């Protein structure tokens, strides 16, 4: 992906398997969110292509969602003036086909679909722990709940791969722990998950594998332990080579402070 003369993301290749959580880390401006935007079709890659589940994805957000890739946003982008349930129901949009005609005559298909959509959406709200907020306006929810609702909305599209862009940004430790549990719960459904996060403790706890992006390139990909101990990662974050483990810890704290 190129913006004018700036190469924002350059030859990033990776694989996520079913039931696996992949972490995407990197210093600010490394191209993590740009990478997400390329994947989901919000940006049209200047070069290269996205292959998902054996098929090339067109750079159209809607097609990407239908293919089974859903995302959340770094800065929450809920439909604030809709209720929590309605937000999830919008997520169900691409999995239903109720047309205008049956909607106008309130035909059997309309009633069937509407009932199924409502039930499934409520189920998802319960799943992320927002069952009690069905009729609350999204904009009235607490920050943590809004993050959960975004996940529920993304789950509404029946994804195979879930992309989470900083799901714990701005959360307190307790909310972070709850988010972690939720992500594990989603993985146990058999979904593949990619998480962007600055909170290193969170990411190394959560992920099966971690990929570190620096200046749009893959620096390293491996298990949390491998990435954690790689000196280049620390250099990328802090800028100087680490002398010993003490500095590694300082780096970790730095990571949390960033988050």
């Amino acid at each position, binding site marked *: 992906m190129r913006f004018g003369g700036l190469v924002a993301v350059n030859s990033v290749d990776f694989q996520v398997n079913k039931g696996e959580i992949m972490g995407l880390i990197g210093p600010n401006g490394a191209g993590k969110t740009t990478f997400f935007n390329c994947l*989901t079709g*919000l940006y049209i890659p200047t070069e290269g292509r996205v292959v998902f589940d054996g098929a090339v994805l067109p750079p159209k*957000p*809607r097609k990407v*969602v*239908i293919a089974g890739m*859903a*995302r959340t*946003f770094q800065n929450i*982008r*809920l*439909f*604030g*003036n*809709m*209720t929590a349930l*309605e937000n999830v*129901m*919008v*997520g169900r*949009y*691409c*999995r*239903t086909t*109720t047309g*205008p005609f049956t*909607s*106008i005559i*309130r035909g059997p298909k*309309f009633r069937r*679909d*509407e009932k199924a*959509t409502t039930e499934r959406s409520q189920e998802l709200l319960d799943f992320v722990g927002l069952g009690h907020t069905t*009729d*609350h*306006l999204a*904009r*009235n929810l607490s920050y943590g709940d809004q993050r959960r609702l975004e996940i529920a*909305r*993304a789950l*509404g*599209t029946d994804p195979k791969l879930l992309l989470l862009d900083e799901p714990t940004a701005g959360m307190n430790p307790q909310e972070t722990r709850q988010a972690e549990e939720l992500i594990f719960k989603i993985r146990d459904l058999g979904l593949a998950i990619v998480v962007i996060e600055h909170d290193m403790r969170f990411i190394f706890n959560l992920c099966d594998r971690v990929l570190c992006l620096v200046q749009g390139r893959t620096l390293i990909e491996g298990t949390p332990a491998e990435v954690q101990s790689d000196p280049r990662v620390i250099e990328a974050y802090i800028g100087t080579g680490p002398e010993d483990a003490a500095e590694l810890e300082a780096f970790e704290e730095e990571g949390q402070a960033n988050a």
Partner: protein
Amino acid sequence: MSKMPQLVTPERQQRTDPAGRWLGIAGGLVLAASALLPWAYSFEALDGMTLIAFPSPLQYLGMVLGLLVAGLIICSRLIKPRGKIRVGWIRAAKAAGTGALVYIGLIVLSISLELGGLINVVYGGWLALLGAVLAFAGTRLMIPDQPATLSHAQIRPALEILLIALVMGAALFATAFGLNIDDGGTFVCFLAFLGAFVAVLFRVGVMGFLSGASQRHRKVLILAAFVVAFLFPFTQGGSDANMSIATQVIIFAAAAMGLNITVGLAGLLDLGYIAFLGAGAFTAAVLSRSAFATADIHPPFIVVVLIAGVVSATLGLIIGSPTLRVSGDYLAIVTLAFGEIFRITMINLDGEAGPDITHGSNGIPAIPDLTLLGFDFGDPHTVLGIPLGRFSNYYFLLLVLIAFVILVFVRLNNSRIGRGWVAIREDEKAAEAMGVNVFGLKLFAFASGAFLAGIAGAVKAHVDISITPDQFVFLESAFLLAAVVLGGMGTVLGVLVGATLLKLLPEKLRFVTDYRLMIFALLLILMMRFRPEGMIPSRRRQLEFHEEDEELAERIEEEVEETGVLKGAGR
């Protein structure tokens, strides 16, 4: 909503409350009594206010307002709140006081305008003004009570239904009465009274109760509304004057409701919408049995209506597919240009500049009346001894039309498609990223709005007899948009009210006809400043226009939890 400026501070009200009470009661009684005295010097003014002990209708209405002020204040002392249910006596009295002052002020102004000078207002009129001023001042000095909570009250269902029917009947009576007023000043004063009366009903809590009751009996309400609309021609005693206006109002309202899909639901600004009405009208005209029609085939009207709708919808698709890639102001400019292109094309299809389809600016005249199943819409009929003229016949047809338009609007709004539209309005990028077919839904909003305008146009061709390109100028698009914005984007009731006001006022009031551009422009500017969501706002739109207002969000959320729906459509 912005707060009204406070004339008397709450601290001062603490001291002046008892005095205000007596002042208010006295003012109200003086106003009521003055109705028995002559108000104007000559019988020419308003509806004849020169007799002693024989009040004219307007004087009776003044008496009602006066008695309301006094009665409400007295009730506030006599009737204590029971449980959680409160009645807003004092608040209502304040509204009545203000209403009385405006009402009497307008009457005094009208008398002096119609007869040439304040000298023509005689002692009864001055006494009424004094009473109104006292009532206004008195109620301002009082401490307001808590807002009414009558919406929580419930009575027996049968009684509630009866009440709804009574209110509908009263509305029919008021409409029939108002429309039969010929004198401009009288009409304005009557509107002022209605405004004051409705405000009082709101404040006292009756409106809250009624809206609660009508929610519990929604079907009854809709049925009653249509029965009332159906009965309206029977109140006209065979006169076609008001019925002609009524048909125009309904055509205008049906078109506005179609535009409401595009603007109110999908949030697309369309400034050339009148072209779709025109396309439908020209299609029907060309296919009609008029001697000037240019097509040789004359399908039955039902088919013509469908063709007209499809032609308009196709135009909508053609104009929409390239232009919907731009948004906001750009879309407005493109659609505005499209509206003009349509009109000029119709002028050019005259046999010289292009093929002869519309006879250019002469248009297609002499479109014959409709005949449906042997029923000739041009013939007057007599039902139960009441003669119904040509326009009454069309009025009934148009009622069916607008019922259909409203049905389409409401059901689309409360469906998967409607949810998609809301999501697009809220955050287009996020909607797209969640798999909503943004482009398709926008195009559909455009086309379905156009379809509804097309079928309205097909009926319009027969009602208006003659169709010419200059009926479809930009100004008409602007008026349609104004009706939607003034009334309340995305609502049924609001747009109906907006369309009625915008079409009715110029017909009934000479003054408004002459200055209608200025008046409507001012009205729009004021609305945008003080109430951008329109007169009768949809809850969702209200939220959108007040992103910062936490209190509003909380209140609406409570409402949603009670009723289970966030009312995007009419209330």
